């Protein structure tokens, strides 16, 4: 593991990173809670992906770069600018939900204001879209970069190959990310792919492929820093495979104790990236346990307030069901 210091981020930035990670965790816990009590009908969780997502997202410039996320990318979306309330509006399916105005299921993130492009439930369709976003940077002669992510199971979809192939040919400023948590619902990686790493597929399409330990904040952050800088300079795309863990069941509709052993599940918790990061932060003197608690309390208060506010917002009006099918 690399030290946090080696990331080159200053103390304030590092605390910011930690705050995002913890916020991702706490907000997701709230979403589960709402699902359990029936106030939300569904949740799919990024727990275990948060450190990697924050390290990834902080290597970009959200005001100008575009993000095409997948359903576990809530924490990355927070770094990109979405608020806890924005996320909660989606879970409640409210009209004010910036992701879809209540049209899509929870966890289908998007926000015009924040350069986050809406995705569907059909996995990996965002990959070809990301190449279009990146191609527009060439056309506009601008130096923004597109980022898109998916799971390791979803990365086997043919559209992923087609998008990577095109990006390689056109040397597009797009970073492809595979968040490898070892499972596609119940299917382990042995039944998903036979190659040693998913990162190997980068070179098979003509650009770098890098595997990083997603619990290693600095390794992940620096890997992205490099490929984002290259993409911005016109050197073309990259594929980054982040090794992460899925700490929870696949979704609210799944029970992973059916197909994962008790021991495996306990091991997951031991390697929880959040705890790894907290240990590093303390050891390297960025934060004390006490300060962390303060941050946590602040976040909980913020999330509580956001929950109340979001819940109080209006549901979509049934009369709007045919709005925006076509342009007026």
């Amino acid at each position, binding site marked *: 593991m690399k030290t946090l210091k080696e990331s080159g981020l200053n103390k304030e930035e590092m605390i910011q990173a930690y705050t995002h990670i913890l916020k991702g965790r706490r907000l997701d816990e709230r979403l589960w809670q709402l699902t359990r009590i029936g106030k939300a009908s569904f949740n799919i969780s990024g727990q275990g992906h948060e450190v990697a997502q924050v390290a990834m997202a902080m290597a970009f410039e959200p005001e100008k770069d575009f993000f095409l996320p997948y359903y576990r990318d809530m924490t990355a979306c927070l770094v990109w600018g979405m608020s806890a309330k924005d996320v909660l509006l989606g879970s409640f399916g409210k009209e004010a939900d910036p992701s879809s105005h209540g049209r899509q299921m929870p966890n289908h993130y998007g926000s015009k204001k924040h350069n986050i492009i809406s995705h569907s439930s059909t996995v990996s369709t965002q990959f070809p879209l990301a190449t279009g976003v990146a191609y527009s940077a060439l056309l506009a002669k601008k130096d923004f970069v597109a980022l898109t992510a998916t799971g390791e199971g979803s990365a086997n979809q043919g559209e992923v190959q087609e998008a990577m192939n095109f990006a390689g040919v056109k040397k597009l400023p797009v970073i492809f990310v595979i968040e490898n948590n070892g499972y596609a619902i119940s299917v382990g990686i042995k*039944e998903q792919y036979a190659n040693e790493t998913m990162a190997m597929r980068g070179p098979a399409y003509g650009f770098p492929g890098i595997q990083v330990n997603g619990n290693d904040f600095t390794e992940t952050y620096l890997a992205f820093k490099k490929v984002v800088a290259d993409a911005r300079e016109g050197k073309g795309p990259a594929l980054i495979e982040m090794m992460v863990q899925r700490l929870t069941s696949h979704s609210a509709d799944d029970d992973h104790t059916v197909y994962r052993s008790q021991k495996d599940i306990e091991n997951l918790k031991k390697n929880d990236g959040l705890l790894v990061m907290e240990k590093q932060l303390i050891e390297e003197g960025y934060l004390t346990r006490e300060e962390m608690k303060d941050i946590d309390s602040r976040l909980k208060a913020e999330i509580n307030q956001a929950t109340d506010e979001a819940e109080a917002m209006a549901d979509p009006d049934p009369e709007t069901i045919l709005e925006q099918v076509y342009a007026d």
Partner: protein
Amino acid sequence: MAMMTYLEAIRKGIEEEMTRDEKVVIFGEDVGGVKGGVFGVTKGLAEKFGDERCFNTPLTEGQIGGLAVGLGTMGYRAIGEFQFADYILPAVNQLISEASRMRYRTKGDWTAPIVYRAPYGGGVRGGLYHSQSTEKVLFGQPGLRIVTPSSVYDAKGLIKAAIRCDDPVLFYEHKRLYRLLKEDVPEEDYVVPIDKANVVRKGDDITVIGYGMVLNHALKAADALSEEGIEAEVVDVRSLYPLDKETLIKAAKKTGKVLLVTEDNKEGSIMSEIAAIIAEEALFYLDAPIKRLAGPDSPSMPYALSLEREFLVTEDKVLAAMKELAEF
């Protein structure tokens, strides 16, 4: 007789056929192992028939589609599961270009006996991509059959018929009926014809044609109307393509008043074809315009409860439409 749900009836039918014919194999995402499908339809099959005959595939629907065709050319009877009917879309090329045409383009030298299973239908808070009735996309592709059961009895008999059929069959399962319907069905081996509509209720006043959830609504509404002295003939389309024209035309002629019900969008649905057939073959028997009751023309069902409710063809809506037609 044995009491079982619609879901259990499908499982039992598959199990019986796998026992009967060792050429039958089944696969799909999460289909194998201990999970046995996200809805549990294939639970226990891997244990019973081994990991070679019941197995997980990577998350790639095009591959599921083509794998089945390849197995078919070699004399196997593949059952490929699409986790949701929405996710047939990445496999459309294989289904149309390969499965449905292998026989025709070789004049029977090579064939592809296949069952593609897919849970479809809305009312489960699944949003745009977990609620669709995608049968219209594959409708009208000669060589391919599309069927769907609307009762527990048919669920078992029809899946067995589909497996024994020498044609590729797209077998739609209504996900809301999985656990909603529970019935006594015969213990002994039986099949339901693959190409016949079914008059499920006799009546002289109006004819209602549908399948799936809305067919069940129609049956309940017919009972309610019966108390008011209106008797509805109710027809379960069952074989969506090719259609059993004879039965449909006969039922239309019988009452001269036809209501076509589908939970899909109105335009381009299978009910449109049925309307066209009746208008071509039975026009002068009609005493009322051929009325279609369907969802609005929005892209599938939005997520928010207010919008989903607005979209759904409910029992109340079916009852009201039947009444209106009877009074015409």
